[in-house]
């Protein structure tokens, strides 16, 4: 294909911009995280034990998400069910049979009124937990279709809005009242497998900024009102499986297939730290942060959950119990409990 002058010019500009950005990042990189945190007190060894072993699914459990009430969580399994659990008692509050058993991602609305899920059915289905249909199961309020790939991630902004990431590399914004897509745009050069919102102002659990992680090995920062990314973060050497915003809103943590977890900072626009476990054998499927942001936790293919002091970059402990890959973990909003789910069909609540 013959290249014309404009293409050549644009390509050169691109190379120059890349060099410029790397240069500016280098200039900003005037300190190491671990050194700057030398003055911080040490943290105790984290003591989390399985307080509830939630049994009920009869196939691999792929995804778990807490409600904004820090008490209920939803899990999705290849057994074709969503289960809403009361983590304080261990009881199943609702069991929702799905039309497709290929669920990959679940989300709980912060209000606790709705849950959403989707997967290889290339759809995102939203259920109303306060309204039952004639079989007694939570009513489907929306079936959001039109994806050209599987649904890999979804998160509610509020009861009326949901954002999804999919295998067709797009992000879609939906208005649940009208059932219409309000935005659809190419987001990454690979499946958009994870997304996380920064906290909002005051009591609002959800703000305008969110981060996405992709199979294309990058993470991007977005504003909900816009279709173009704000920032792109490189560094991971394989799929970024999970992203989670730091409670400060200034950073986010990641877990990756490349067997590392990392911390990226928005305002200096670069990676601050790389975390590895004592035996660097397995990829990380999921990640979470403690309430203050001091600890980073990652679910692993090695069946355990690793914990690090995020600031001093020290491995703090390992949560063992699951008998197969940990697929998803989620910290409750109040920071009291971690929920995890696994291919071993169980869900654990660690307190």
């Amino acid at each position, binding site marked *: 294909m013959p290249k*014309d002058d*404009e*293409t050549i010019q*644009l*390509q050169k*500009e*691109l190379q120059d*911009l*890349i060099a*410029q*950005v790397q240069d*500016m*990042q280098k200039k*900003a*990189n*005037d*300190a*190491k*995280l671990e050194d*700057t*945190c030398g003055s*911080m007190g040490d*943290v105790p060894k*984290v*003591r*989390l034990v399985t*307080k*509830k072993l939630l049994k009920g699914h009869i196939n691999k459990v792929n995804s778990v998400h807490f409600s904004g009430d820090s*008490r209920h969580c939803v899990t999705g399994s290849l057994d074709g069910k969503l289960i809403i659990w009361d983590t*304080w008692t261990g009881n199943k509050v609702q069991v929702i049979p799905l039309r497709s058993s290929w669920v990959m991602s679940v989300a709980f609305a912060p209000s606790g009124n709705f849950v959403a899920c989707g997967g290889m059915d290339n759809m995102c289905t939203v259920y109303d937990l306060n309204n039952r249909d004639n079989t007694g199961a939570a009513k489907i309020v929306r079936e959001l279709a039109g994806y050209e790939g599987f649904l890999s991630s979804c998160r509610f902004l509020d009861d009326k809005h949901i954002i999804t990431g999919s295998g067709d590399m797009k992000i879609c914004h939906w208005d649940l009242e009208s059932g219409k897509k309000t935005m659809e745009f190419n987001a990454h050069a690979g499946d958009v497998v994870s997304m996380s919102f920064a906290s909002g102002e005051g009591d609002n659990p959800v703000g305008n900024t969110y981060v996405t992680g992709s199979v*294309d090995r990058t993470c991007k920062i977005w504003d909900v009102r816009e279709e*173009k*990314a*704000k*920032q*792109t973060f*490189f560094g991971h050497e394989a799929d970024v499986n999970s992203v989670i915003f*730091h*409670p*400060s809103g*200034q*950073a986010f943590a990641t877990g990756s297939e490349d067997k590392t977890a990392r911390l990226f*900072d928005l*305002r*200096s*626009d670069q990676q*601050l730290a790389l975390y590895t476990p004592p035996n660097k054998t397995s990829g990380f499927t999921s990640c979470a942060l*403690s*309430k*203050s*942001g*001091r*600890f980073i936790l990652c679910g692993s293919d090695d069946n355990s959950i690793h914990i690090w002091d995020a*600031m001093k970059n020290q491995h703090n402990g390992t949560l063992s119990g699951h008998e197969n890959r940990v697929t998803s973990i989620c910290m409750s909003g*109040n*920071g*009291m*409990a971690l929920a995890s789910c696994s291919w071993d069909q169980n869900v654990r*609540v660690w*307190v």
Partner: protein
Amino acid sequence: MDMMISNLQQQRQVTEQLRREAAIKRISVSQAVQDIMKFISEHEQDDCLIVGFSSQKANPFREKSSCTLL
């Protein structure tokens, strides 16, 4: 950095996007880390993984005794 650029239109979009991203204001890592440290210190007391539960009563996941007030 792999870019899937197959035509001029995409090339323009990619370059424009990088122009936008390159133009953001960056602060120093030392400043960024100081600010994150400050946030963490301010919220340490709320972090159960650091301070634990103030008393067993504060832990909603504890085993409940068999007596309840009706």
